[in-house]
């Protein structure tokens, strides 16, 4: 196992190729659940969890079922079913085991199914031929990148009501412009690479 490669994947997923700001994956929940910092943080946590778990399970299914049987064309279908089932399972599990976390996440849990960052990460794992550990690391750190992005964005958005902007930009447009500026800031990371 190449530690440098893992570090490279981590750094890439969290900062350089941040899912939100450079890959455009998971924009819907990013825009929808970022009005308050604490719900944004809850969503981010849930996404880390589901992305990590989905990466692991989908890797196993792809490797031992789809590739083994030559059914790669069923990838998208299999992955989305795994994710939907996983989210459902996590929901049931949390409800029984950790009710406090369950009520904190509330309606955001089922929404994760249609978070394209989750399906995106498993598809990218397959596309990049990551092995099991790399896939899980990419999934978890991709989720961390999402968490950082959404918390930063939510905390700026909370302050937006003090800002003075044209009326037409009310609501969504000004949020998009803010996200654009954040993306600009994240571009600063793009020169970074790990010296081999």
């Amino acid at each position, binding site marked *: 196992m190449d530690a440098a490669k893992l570090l490279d994947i981590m750094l*890439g997923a969290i900062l350089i*190729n941040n899912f939100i700001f450079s890959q455009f994956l998971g924009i819907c929940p990013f825009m929808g659940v970022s009005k308050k910092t604490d719900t944004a943080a809850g969503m981010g946590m849930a996404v880390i969890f589901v992305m990590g778990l989905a990466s692991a399970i989908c890797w196993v299914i792809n490797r031992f079922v789809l590739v083994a049987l030559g059914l790669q*064309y069923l990838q998208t*279908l299999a992955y989305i079913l795994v994710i939907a089932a996983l989210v459902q399972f996590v929901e049931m599990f949390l409800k029984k085991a950790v009710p406090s976390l369950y009520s904190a996440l509330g309606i955001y849990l089922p929404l994760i199914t249609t978070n394209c960052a989750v399906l995106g990460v498993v598809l990218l794992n397959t*596309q*990049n*031929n990551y092995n099991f550990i790399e896939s899980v690391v990419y999934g978890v750190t991709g989720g961390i990148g999402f968490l950082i992005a959404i918390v930063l964005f939510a905390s700026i958005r909370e302050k937006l009501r003090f800002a003075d902007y044209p009326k037409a930009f009310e609501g969504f447009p000004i949020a998009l412009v803010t996200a654009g500026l954040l993306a600009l800031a994240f571009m600063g990371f793009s*020169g970074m*690479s790990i010296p081999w």
Partner: protein
Amino acid sequence: MNKIVKLALILFAFSAVVALLLGMVNVVTEGRIAALEKEKQDKAMQEVLPSSGYEELEYTGGNPNILNVFKAGDAGYVVKVVESGSQGNVEMIVGLDSSFTVTGVSIVKHQETSGLGAVAASTGADGQAFRGQFVGLTNASVTKDGGTVEAITGATITSRAVCRGVNDAIAAAKTVG
């Protein structure tokens, strides 16, 4: 409990029908997709090092980035190599003559940013100029790192990835040659 079983069966039936349909489409498209990919690779190989035939060699060097090594008759070697660029993997084909000097580079697959990193693979004049810089080199690095390759404006990471690919290809060809 009965209800859950029934629902599961319905979902299963839907999935089975969809999977069956996909299987049918796949039969039609599979051959074409494979043929297209092969054609693209053959074209790229002819571009970097023209030869009447390519014979795949077994590579045992252990570099996971090396996908295939081919011997192009007496002309030299063609190596297919993958490196991580700025947005994902960059897959390229590197041609080398028998003294391991680069004869050409062709980028077959990438996900780099359009207008920046993607220039490396473009068929336009700027892309050709970038790839042309590698011809005649035996060791590639961008000017920022003290080499001779002018990086694409705003896409040093992609340029570095191509340099790494060329160097890996040279090293791999040397182990089999």
